[in-house]
């Protein structure tokens, strides 16, 4: 018998206060569903750092209407990481099942308590939603839910340019056997459909920003606080400073343009890495590069308010949440035409798309924006409008709630 309110179980590798895009996504959706009157429980690990799976957080927490149950996971040390690398590389080379098992163990989080709890209590829920397929909890969570006969929805958060995030036969098994797959972008959806998933079982969900508007950014004041002048043209790079995020590409483009456009400033914000330290030392003599390191939320807002455009030539984005943030401040964006990002950014309309790792195209896009303030303004406004229209948490939850309802109806249809 159908009913208006659902009992939903979300199973995820980590949950806030742990930081990350997938964590934020599942928390936003859970809280919005709870606000709409559904009963939402979350099963997750006690960790806030996927590098170690250290058990730091409390076993239970009620967070904005959502009951969060956290389970102990086996820690991830150096040996586990080696196991993971051995598994991933071996699987890519041979496709052997042993390597898959090593990948499963190496990925983690391995939470026996979570599996046991799901085996015992999954049947109390109407639907199980698994998030982030690259981690092992999806595989054993799926097995437990299937055993109880509960419909399963999966949000894979697959980085299509990094096959190790989805391309293992146990991951494909979960995707194929699930009742529904929620892709983040139309590009991801079309990839899964091309790979053989039934089109009616794959829906584009997307991610969203809170409905509350960001505080109006006073660009001048933000610039003063950040030590930038009003005449500067500020390109912002916001993200983990790794090669896959394209930090080297941004620096190359900046170094090439700086001679011709002395007003150009490159603001870098995000956690540093060994790669970024080496790279920044190499580009030390290039003027106009400012590294703000890890930034607080307030400083991030200042940076977004102060910049003229956001450049994130990343080749490993499942969606690109930061594009939405830049748009919400009315700033144009530059991304890479990967399968996922090219369905989020409309090239020439609300931003530019460049070829992967192509510094010359990035430089060309920046020149367009420097030389045409009207274009900059138009692109930013269109992006802002797009966020308001499509990428809010409420809109994203509409899709998730709709998918749950369709899955439940489909289940009843096949059993009747």
């Amino acid at each position: 018998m159908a009913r208006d309110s659902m009992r939903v179980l979300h199973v995820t590798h980590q949950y806030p206060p742990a930081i990350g895009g997938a964590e934020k996504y599942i928390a936003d959706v859970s809280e919005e569903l709870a606000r709409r009157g559904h009963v939402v429980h979350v099963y997750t690990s006690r960790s806030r750092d996927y590098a170690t799976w250290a058990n730091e957080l409390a076993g239970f927490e009620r967070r904005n209407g959502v009951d969060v149950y956290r389970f102990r996971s086996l820690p991830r040390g150096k040996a586990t990481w080696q196991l993971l690398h051995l598994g991933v590389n071996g699987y890519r080379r041979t496709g052997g099942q042993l390597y898959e098992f090593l990948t499963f163990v190496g990925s983690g989080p391995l939470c026996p308590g979570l599996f046991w709890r799901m085996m015992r209590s999954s049947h109390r829920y109407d639907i199980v939603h698994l998030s982030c397929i690259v981690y092992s909890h999806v595989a054993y969570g799926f097995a437990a839910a299937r055993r109880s006969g509960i419909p399963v929805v999966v949000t894979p958060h697959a980085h299509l340019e990094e096959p190790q995030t989805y391309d293992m036969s146990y991951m494909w098994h979960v995707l194929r056997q699930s009742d529904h797959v929620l892709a983040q972008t139309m590009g991801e959806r079309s990839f899964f459909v091309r790979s053989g998933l039934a089109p009616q079982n794959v829906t584009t969900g997307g991610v969203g920003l809170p409905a509350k508007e960001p505080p109006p950014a006073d660009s001048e004041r933000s610039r003063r606080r950040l030590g930038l002048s009003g005449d500067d043209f500020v390109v912002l790079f916001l993200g983990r400073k790794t090669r896959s995020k394209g930090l080297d590409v941004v620096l190359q483009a900046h170094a090439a343009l700086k001679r011709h456009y002395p007003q150009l400033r490159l603001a870098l914000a995000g956690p540093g890495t060994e790669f970024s330290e080496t790279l920044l030392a190499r580009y030390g003599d290039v003027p106009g590069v400012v590294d703000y390191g890890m930034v607080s939320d307030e400083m991030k807002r200042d940076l977004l308010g102060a910049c003229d455009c956001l450049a994130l030539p990343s080749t490993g984005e499942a969606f690109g949440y930061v594009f939405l943030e830049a748009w919400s401040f009315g700033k144009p964006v530059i991304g890479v035409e990967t399968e996922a990002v090219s369905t989020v950014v409309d090239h020439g309309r609300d931003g530019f798309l460049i070829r992967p790792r192509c510094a010359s195209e990035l430089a060309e896009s920046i020149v367009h924006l420097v030389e045409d303030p009207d274009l900059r303004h138009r692109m930013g406004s269109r992006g802002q409008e797009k966020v308001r229209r499509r990428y809010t948490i409420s809109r994203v939850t509409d899709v998730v709630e709709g998918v749950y309802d369709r899955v439940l109806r489909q289940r009843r249809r096949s059993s009747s």
Partner: protein
Amino acid sequence: MKVSVLAPQGEAEHPDTSRLSCLTRCFAEHDVQVKLHRSGETQGLSKQSSLGSQVAEPPPLAVKEQQDYVSSDVCIYMLPGSESWLPRIPSVEHGIVILDFDGTPSEGASRWLHHADLCFVSSGDIRRKLIRDYGFSTDRVYLISSDDPSCSHKVFAITERAIEGNLDAAQESCESEQRPWTQAPHLHALRVTGRIAEARANVALRDYVVRSRLPILGPIIAWVRRQLTSHLREPYLDRIIERQVAFNREVTVWMEQSSAFLNELEERLTRLEGQLDRGDESEASRVTQVEHGGEESS
């Protein structure tokens, strides 16, 4: 098959009459029982005003009517005008839910749109809005024009496929609707071929595992066979196959780029031909004018 249609009140004065009759006719032609439910609160409102209306409490249903509605195999909501029924979608037990749009969806109704299995729309503009603003995939939104004589046949075929859980066949036709390739059908064909090639580029059989079905000795036999072939597979065959897959992918990307380039050339050619035609016409009119001028002066 039991079909419920939820339509706005006042068939006679409502402009949706032909659309409603198209929907009901299609099922009647196949001897399918259609139950028509009316929503009351939009009575007397013009289509324009109902677009902006908020979703109100759904009108109460008689017990019998409620039973018919929730147990239907297909529920069709005609919009605008039936927004107040949308919050009842979760009470549908197992039926396919179809939203039929003859106008753009109101903001208040947006929460319920994704509960629908399918959408029928009367115009390309509404279809684009559903895809662009609400993130619907192309294979869930069908353009159904009530002026089209084959409309009822199309509606029935799509509904039947949806019940069977097989809407794959419709996908290609929808994509063609989205991208009009009328000027260069051969390029469309090339693009489709490219897409198929892309899917086939990955020739490696990654799921293949050496197995033996013998009860006890099987695993040992499989293990021996794996060991006997691994010296060839791992250093040699697998690498060749991976190289082949990489090459195939590069070729498909190249094909995709070539077809896009050809398409661009085709468009430029059409534009230039148009300019040439317009140039010919203006040249002809200029010649005529000169001739007339000459005649007059002589």
